């Protein structure tokens, strides 16, 4: 979204958090944060909503459970009932282990799939490189320049927070 933004890089997460705090104080929206590790308390600082992945897990798990249970029962009771060890065609107890495993399998795969999809991760995906070293030891903060925003104030704010370098990028 070809808008201009200031990209500030930090060496320590304290500075980053301070900068975010200050920016939000002064009514600036925070575009994105890049970090080599999950920064503790970042979501809280941005009061971002919690991920909805658990619902996908639930859905996938349910699907697996129902599919496994129904298929086993259908195959063993309706499609081709056989006398196996004198047990009843519907040996429901014996069908539990597979049902459980299917639940876990589909739950897990669905969640992972959803994660990749939502985060646009894939073999072809091209990483956004707004600052070098964000996968190594650099924390980067992206502040989009709003119409009303005056760049100087922002730069000072970031510098005050201890930004190493501040560049203007398009993103």
């Amino acid at each position, binding site marked *: 979204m070809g808008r201009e933004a200031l990209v500030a890089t930090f060496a320590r997460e304290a500075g980053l958090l301070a900068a975010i705090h200050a920016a939000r104080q002064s009514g600036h929206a925070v575009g994105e944060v890049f970090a080599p590790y999950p920064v503790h308390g970042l979501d809280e600082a941005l009061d971002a909503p919690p991920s909805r992945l658990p619902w996908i897990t639930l859905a996938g798990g349910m699907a697996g459970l129902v599919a496994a249970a129904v298929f086993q029962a259908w195959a063993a009771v309706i499609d081709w009932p056989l*006398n*196996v*060890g*004198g*047990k*009843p065609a519907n040996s429901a107890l014996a069908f539990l282990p597979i049902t459980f495993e299917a639940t876990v399998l589909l739950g897990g795969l669905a969640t992972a799939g959803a994660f990749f999809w939502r985060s646009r991760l894939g073999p072809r995906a091209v990483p956004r490189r707004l600052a070098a070293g964000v996968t190594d030891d650099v924390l980067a903060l992206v502040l989009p320049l709003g119409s009303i925003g005056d760049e100087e104030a922002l730069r000072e704010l970031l510098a005050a927070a201890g930004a190493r370098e501040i560049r203007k990028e398009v993103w």
Partner: protein
Amino acid sequence: MASAITEIPDREDSGQSRRDFLKLMGFSVGAAALASCTPIPERQAVPLLSQPEGLLPGVESWYATTCGGCPAGCGLLAKDRDGRPIKVEGNPRSPISRGATCAVGQATVLSLYDDQRLRGPRLHGRPATWEEVDAFVDERLAAIAARGGALALLTGTIISPSSRALIAAFLHRFPNARHVVHDAVSLAALREANRRSFGRPVLPRFRFDRARVIVGLEADFLGTWLSPVELARAWADGRRLEKPAEMARHYQFEGGLSLTGSNADRRTGVLPSQLGLVALALLERVARRAGTPVPAAADLPCDAALLDAAANDLWRHRGESLVVCGVNDPAVQVVVNRLNFLLGNVGRTLDLTHPSWQRQGDDAAVAELMAGMERGEIHGLLLWGVNPAYDHPQAERFVRALGNVPFKVSFAERVDETAMHADAVCPDHHELESWGDAEPVAGALSLRQPAIAPLFDTRAAAASLLRWLGGPGDVYAWLREHWRREIFPRQSRWARFDDFWDHSLQDGVCELPAEDDVGEEPVDRADLQAAAAEILASHREALAARRESGYEIRFYEKVGLRDGRHANNPWLQELPDPVTRITWGNYACVSPLLAADLGLVEGDVVILRSGGRALELPVHLQPGQPRQAISVALGYGRTRAGKVGDGVGGNAFPLMPFRNGFVRGHAIGVRLEKTGRREKLAAVQLHDSMEGRPIVREASLDEIRRDPAAGNEERPPLLSLWEERPREGHFWGMAIDLNACLGCGACVVACQAENNVAVVGRDEVRRGREMHWIRIDRYHSGEVDEPRTVYQPMMCQHCGNAPCETVCPVLATVHSSDGLNQQVYNRCVGTRYCANNCPYKVRRFNWFDYADNDRFDYNMNSDLGRMVLNPDVVVRSRGVMEKCSLCVQRIQAGKLAAEVAGSPPADGDIRTACQQACPSRAIVFGDLNDPGSEVSRRQGSPRFYRLLEELNTRPVVGYLTRVRNLPEEEA
């Protein structure tokens, strides 16, 4: 539907069985063409069950014939599929077999397809044409006749009347010829004793079914002696526990644990050299009661109380008791004759008026012939059905003597130890290829007709003789003519000979009315003093020999290999000996007590030295073996039997002593040396004890009389988590009477033949991988020197709640609606989980490809051998599990037949192979949903139990308790 799955030829991978089957069809269609083009089966043979018009492919036809496995002469039915015999079964009309067979009989069909058989005649060690051979023989015979040279015809026991007539004709044509009969294991002494005692040099017909008390001395009449199938059936009939619970009591005194002894109610081990003393001791006791003076026995060979008990029982059942002795020493037999005479058994349980011809060997005559040969007095020798170069105690001497005989002809079907020295070998047909007849017991005749045209360029021995007598060599004509002249007049049922002939041929047997010239009851005139003196003399001799730390060897036959003539038959080699449970080879059975003293363990190889001869054998620790006696089986150590039989075990014949005219069944003064080597025996069972588990349930007759459920008290309560499945239609089941089962192993070979069970060979058996679908577990209990032995046939129990079915991931074993536990070979992936989870361990896994694999060069590795395969049963491929199917193919066939007939199959219409073969009728199969069926009756018996019932596997196969009729003081 499910059972249909098992019928599908293996689609996924058994190109195996399909390819085999096609090849085999190819070959057999050839054979079928022969069989049907050549007039023999078409015009002259009359199938018993199906109409004679031609062969229907895939439809079996049955030919009544006579077994050639041994001279017992059991009537057989040969089952033909597409022109080739694939199975033999007992002929129910035969008074000898009464529908059953022994293991050997079952296996004869495989010998037919033995690819070591000669493909044609041989002259001077090279293949030749019959013309050349005939020319040679004619010329030589003429020459010999011209200068009055001496001819000898050395044959085995010949029970065929027409052949005996033929031999008579031959002797007539060559006046200076003689006929000598040689039996590897002879009963000559018994015939001699009957001559001395009753003036009749014959074998009596033993009627065990009429005997209430039986005392056996060494004679293994249930396993190998004289006529096992006939005698076993009679013995079992005398012990059936029909109401009122009555059964004969059986004592056995023997030099080693035999099949018969292990089935006796009271069995004791006696040194072989002391069996005579046992006879004397019994005679003394009986005579005392009879009030006739007899010479007293020296010292007692065994517990006096036991002898008293036996004598008491014998005396109490005068006229319905029987003493039978297998010692080949006329002195002992004379004493036994006197016993039976004093007990009034002669003419009742001992029939001398309808004698048995089942053994005619004359040891003395053979020895005499040998001497003649050595002196060069024999100018021509014809060998028919004998192999003295292997099975005569003085084989080397015989071979040397052969050198002095300028002209030797053998009728052997292979170049065996004797035939290799013959100028001409004129291979005889296999009995399933030939015409013939038999009169094993006076008045009981049976016919032999070919079930297939000769596979090779062979010729019936009789045909050869006929040809050399100048005739056309047509055995059929000779046979028919003989029956017209000799047999037909002796019967009254049929007016026209053709009817008589056709019916006899169709039935396979005909019983002639007893001759009237029975004459007066025979009276015992033997010189008992002399006999007793002889016995005591040889006893003192044995005593002296033992004092010089000598041992005794007892020679015995195994139910499988018998005298060794079938050594090249893999089914018999792999048949476990019922008592030792060891296959593939013989061994020296020593008492565990002796082994402990000598520091011997199972498998230690020892050298036995006797009379200048030595034999190297591994040791087997055998409970019940007298301390100073060693049992060694005959019939092994062949050198010219073929690729299967050669070099298996050691030949014990040379160690048999020849004493005043008779080959002794035991040797004395034997030395035993250790070699330090060890050889693993190919046993199929390593553990002898039941560990106190109620596996074979036992009770004494008295207990049974008091409470029919005695010994069978354990009845665990069976709960179910779900409601039982309904039992509609048929519900197959089986009941096995452990009181009837002898453990003889006929069922094992029958099953092998019926179900294409693979032979795996010695090494694989050693690894515990034999494939038999039915096995006969044998357990010992009690004292090491006086073990109590029980047998238990064990096959798939077809559990209603089958542990194997539940665990198979691919549904390769499931349950049929009629109660069968089915193994679906073409579905199996071979996890072996089912076998692990089987409490009865009856499942067998195909560790290798057993068909078409040079590592297993047995019958399934050649087109010829594969002709014996049953096309109704898939040949299993490598990596699949297999097991007893209760002969599902027979069940299906039976149901089909019933459907065609429009009536449900009657009880007994469908019989499994094991049930069919069983000489003692121990196994009964049938429909449990039919309350009237025999199997339902048996399963209703208070003696009935299911094995490991507490596991709640709900088997449809079950057992009836074993009952011992113990002597009073022990009961």
